[in-house]
C-alpha cells in the first residue's frame, strides 16, 4: 500500500466547549483502504473528534484534507457529499421501514416525483450482490436482528459511494458469530478500497482488524501504532496511562460451594428454549454462553418471573417459585437486563429515583410516606460504592454515559439483600474502566454468597468471571464446562454445535 495515499488527514484539530478544551491539536491520517482504529477511554475525545469530522460540531482550529484537498465540513451534508459515512452505536435506521427504503432514505430514485420502485429494487439488489450479503430488501427493519440491521447501515453507507466509513462501537450488541460476519464484511470493504475508521472498546477486535491505531487520551493524540506494534498491554497502558492487570486468555473453572440455591428442572418455553435443567450454588457465578437468540436471555426472564415458562420447575431455596416479578424481588432476585435503555432504567427519572425504585420495601417498610433523606442516603451509598459519575443524584439517568447508566442499573440491586443476581450482557458498549469495576463487583457479590447467572457474548469476560459455564444452542443446554481450564475456542465450538464430548448436565 502506498504510504502517501492518504484519504483523510486532519491536522491540529482543536475543539473546546465553554472554555474546556476537549480536543488539543489532534491529528489523524487515514489511508485509502485501511482500517484505522481509534481508542481511548470515555471522555478522551473520540466522539468529539468524529463529530468534528462529520460536521456535527464546527471545529475551533485545525485543518481537514480530504483526497489531498483542504475541505470545510460544516454540516453533516458536507461530510456526506465528501463520502464520509457514519454507522452509529445506536443504529440510526427507521424500524418501520423496509430495508430498501432505509438504504435509500433521503436519496430515493424518482421519476416525475413518483418513486421508481423498480429502479430502486434493482439498485439495492446490485449493491447487496456486490458485497455478498444475505438480505431481503423488502424485509421490515424492526423484524431483523441487530447484526442484520448493521448490515443495512453499512449498505446505506455504501450506497452513498462513501470512501470512508466511520464505525462507532459496531460490535457492542453483536454475538460472536455476528461480529465475525462483520469482520468479514470489513475485510471485503477494505479490499474494495473503502477506508474504515473503527472505534471500539474491545481490544481483541482492534488487535485483529486494525491496520493502524490512534490512541487518544484527555483530548490529545498519544500515539499512532501500526499493525505490528499493536499489543494489548501497551495499548491499555497508553489509553489509561497506567498498567492494567490483563485477564487471562483462558478461564479456569472453579468448584462451587455445595449449597444449592436454585434448582431448575426441565424448564421449557415453546419456540424459545426447552428442557433446561441446572443447579446454581451459593456464591457461584454461572456463565451462560451461546449465540444471541439461543434462548439465553429468555431463561433469565423466566427465572425472574417476567416471562412464564410453559413447563418445568424452578425451585429457589427448595421451594417452587412461579411468582411475579415483585414477589421474586422480595425473595432476593435481581435482574440486570440486556437492553439497558429499553429495559434497564427509566431515562426521564433522576438517578436517585432509578436506584431507589426497587428498594421501597426496605426504605419505606410499613410507613405511608417516603423519607427523602433516606432515599438520598441510599443513592449516595450507591454512588460511592459504584463510583458513578457525575456524582449528582438528581441528574436524569438518560443523560448519563452508557457505563454509568449500567452502574445505576446494577446499583439498584446492590442496595438490597440480594440472594441471586441475573445479569445479561453487563458490559455491552461500556469502556474498559467501567468494565473492570463491574467485574470486580460481580466477584465481590459472589464472594458474599450471592448466586450470579451471567449471560454474555463477550468470551473473555465469560471465561474470566464465570465459575462454571453452560453453553446454549438452539434453545437447549449444549455443553457444560464445570472444571479445568476452558478456552475461548472451546466455548465458541460448543456454541456453534461442535462437540468433542457430550456432557449431561449433572444429576
Amino acid at each position: 500500500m502506498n504510504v502517501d495515499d492518504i484519504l483523510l488527514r486532519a491536522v491540529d484539530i482543536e475543539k473546546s466547549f465553554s472554555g474546556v478544551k476537549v480536543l488539543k491539536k489532534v491529528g489523524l491520517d487515514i489511508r485509502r483502504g485501511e482500517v484505522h482504529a481509534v481508542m481511548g477511554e470515555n471522555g478522551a475525545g473520540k466522539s468529539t473528534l468524529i463529530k468534528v469530522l462529520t460536521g456535527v460540531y464546527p471545529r475551533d482550529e485545525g485543518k481537514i484534507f480530504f483526497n489531498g484537498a483542504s475541505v470545510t465540513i460544516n454540516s453533516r451534508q458536507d461530510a456526506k457529499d465528501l463520502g464520509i459515512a457514519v454507522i452509529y452505536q445506536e443504529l440510526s435506521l427507521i424500524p418501520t421501514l423496509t430495508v430498501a427504503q432505509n438504504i435509500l432514505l433521503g436519496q430515493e430514485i424518482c421519476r416525475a416525483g413518483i418513486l421508481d420502485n423498480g429502479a430502486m429494487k434493482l439498485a439495492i439488489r446490485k449493491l447487496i450482490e456486490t458485497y455478498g450479503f444475505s438480505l431481503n430488501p423488502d424485509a421490515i427493519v424492526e423484524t431483523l436482528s441487530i447484526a442484520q440491521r448493521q448490515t443495512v447501515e453499512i449498505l446505506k453507507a455504501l450506497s452513498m459511494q462513501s470512501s470512508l466509513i466511520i464505525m462507532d462501537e459496531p460490535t457492542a450488541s453483536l454475538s460472536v458469530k455476528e461480529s465475525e460476519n462483520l469482520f468479514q464484511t470489513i475485510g471485503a470493504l477494505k479490499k474494495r478500497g473503502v477506508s474504515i475508521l473503527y472505534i471500539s472498546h474491545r481490544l481483541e477486535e482492534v488487535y485483529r482488524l486494525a491496520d493502524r491505531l490512534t490512541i487518544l487520551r484527555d483530548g490529545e493524540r498519544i500515539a499512532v501504532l501500526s499493525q505490528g506494534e499493536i499489543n494489548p498491554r501497551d495499548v491499555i497502558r497508553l489509553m489509561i496511562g497506567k498498567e492494567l492487570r490483563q485477564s487471562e486468555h483462558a478461564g479456569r473453572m472453579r468448584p462451587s460451594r455445595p449449597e444449592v440455591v436454585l434448582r431448575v428442572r426441565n424448564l421449557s418455553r415453546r419456540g424459545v428454549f426447552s428442557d433446561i435443567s441446572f443447579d446454581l450454588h451459593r456464591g457461584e457465578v454461572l456463565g451462560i454462553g451461546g449465540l444471541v437468540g439461543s434462548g439465553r436471555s429468555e431463561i433469565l426472564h423466566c427465572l425472574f418471573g417476567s416471562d412464564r415458562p410453559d413447563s418445568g420447575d424452578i425451585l429457589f431455596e427448595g421451594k417452587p417459585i412461579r411468582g411475579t416479578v415483585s414477589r421474586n424481588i422480595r425473595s432476593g432476585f435481581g435482574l440486570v437486563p440486556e437492553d439497558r435503555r429499553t429495559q434497564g432504567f427509566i431515562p426521564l427519572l433522576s438517578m436517585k429515583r432509578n436506584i431507589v425504585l426497587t428498594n421501597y420495601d426496605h426504605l419505606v417498610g410499613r410507613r405511608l410516606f417516603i423519607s427523602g433523606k433516606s432515599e438520598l442516603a441510599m443513592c449516595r451509598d450507591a454512588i460511592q460504592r459504584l463510583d458513578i459519575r457525575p456524582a449528582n443524584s438528581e441528574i436524569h439517568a438518560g443523560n448519563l454515559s452508557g457505563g454509568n447508566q449500567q452502574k445505576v442499573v446494577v446499583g439498584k440491586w446492590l442496595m438490597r439483600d440480594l440472594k441471586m443476581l441475573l445479569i445479561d450482557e453487563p458490559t455491552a458498549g461500556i469502556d474498559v474502566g467501567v468494565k473492570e469495576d463491574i467485574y470486580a463487583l460481580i466477584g465481590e457479590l459472589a464472594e458474599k454468597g450471592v448466586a450470579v447467572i451471567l449471560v454474555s457474548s463477550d468470551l473473555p469476560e465469560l471465561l474470566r468471571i464465570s465459575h462454571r459455564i453452560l453453553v446454549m444452542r438452539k434453545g437447549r443446554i449444549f455443553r457444560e464446562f464445570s472444571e479445568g481450564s476452558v478456552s475461548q475456542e472451546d466455548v465458541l465450538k460448543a456454541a456453534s454445535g461442535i462437540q468433542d464430548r457430550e456432557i449431561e448436565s449433572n444429576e
Partner: protein
Amino acid sequence: MRQETIRRLFSLLLLSILIVAFGATSKLFLTLPNIFTLLREASVTGILAVGVTFVIITAGIDLSTGAIVAFVAMVCANIFYYTTLPVWVALAAGLLIGAGAGYLNGLLVTRLHLPDFIATLSTQGIFRGLALIIAIRSSTGSISNKVITNQGFLLLGDRVSVVYLVTIAFFVVALLGQGILKMTPLGTHTYAIGSSRKSADLSGINSDRVKKVAFTISGICSAVGALFLTARMQTAIPELGTGLEFDVIAAVVIGGCAFSGGRGDVFGSVVGALFMAILTNGIYKYNLPAAFHIIIKGCVIIIMVIFDSVYHRRMDDRIRKAGKMLDQAAAAAEAAGGGAGGIS
C-alpha cells in the same frame, strides 16, 4: 403474506362482520340509498382523516382540524354573501386558507418547538375565534348565519346519480393521500420521522420540512372537508365542526395508526372512517332510546379494539417466534457449514 396485509384483511373482516350483523338484523340497512348516505356520512370525517393520518404518522396530533373547517367554511360564506365572485375563487380561497392554517401549525411545532398537542390546541382556539369574528352579522351586530344561494357552489353537496360528490371526493383524496404516502419520497420521509426522528435526521431528512408538509396536508384536507360540509349545509356557522377532531382521530387510530408514529396508512384511516359511519348509521336503524345509541357505539368500539389488540398480539407473537426459529436455524446452518473459526 406480510403481517401488514394480514392485519389489513383482518380489519376488513371486522368491517364486514359489522355490515353483515346490521344487514341481517335491519331491513333498512342494506338499501341502496342508505349505503350511499352512509358513505356520505363517512366522507367528511374520512377526508379530514386522510390529512390527520399524515400528522399522526409523524408522531404528531392535530386538534385544530374542526376549527379549520369552521374558519374555511366561514370564509366561503363571506365570499358568497358579500361578493359575486365566481365559485372557483371561493374554493381556491378555502383551500389556500386551509393550507395556510396547516402551515401555521407546522411553523408553531417546528419553529417554536411547541408540542403538537399544545400548538394545535391553541390554533384550534385561534381559528375558531377567527370564524366567530368574521361571521356574518345582522345590522344589530349579532351573528346571523346566512343560507348560501350560489348554485354552482351548492353542486358540491349534490350527487351524481346516486353517488354523492363528497364520497367521490373522499375516495379521490384517499387515493391521493395513499399515493403520496406510499409512492413519493415525501411519504417515506413521513414514516421515517415518525418512526425515529433522530435516525431520520441522521439520514439527512429535513424533518421540520416534512412535519410542516404533513400539517399543511392536514390543513388542506380540512379545507376540502369544509367545502363539502358547507355545500351540504348550505351555510356556515361558527361552531361548525366542534369536536369533529376527536371523531377524526378516533377513525385514524381505529384504522391502525399509532400515536407513537411511523405506523398505519390512509387505507386504514378510510376503513376507520367507514367503521365509525357504519356503526353510527347502523344503530339508528333500531328503535332504541337515544341513550342506547351511544352506549352500543361505545361497547362495539371497545369490543373491536380489544379483539383487534388480542388478535394482533397473538399474531405478533407467532411471527416473532417463527422469525426467531428461522434466525436460529440460519445461524446454526452457517456455523455448521462455515466451521468454527476461533476469534483469537
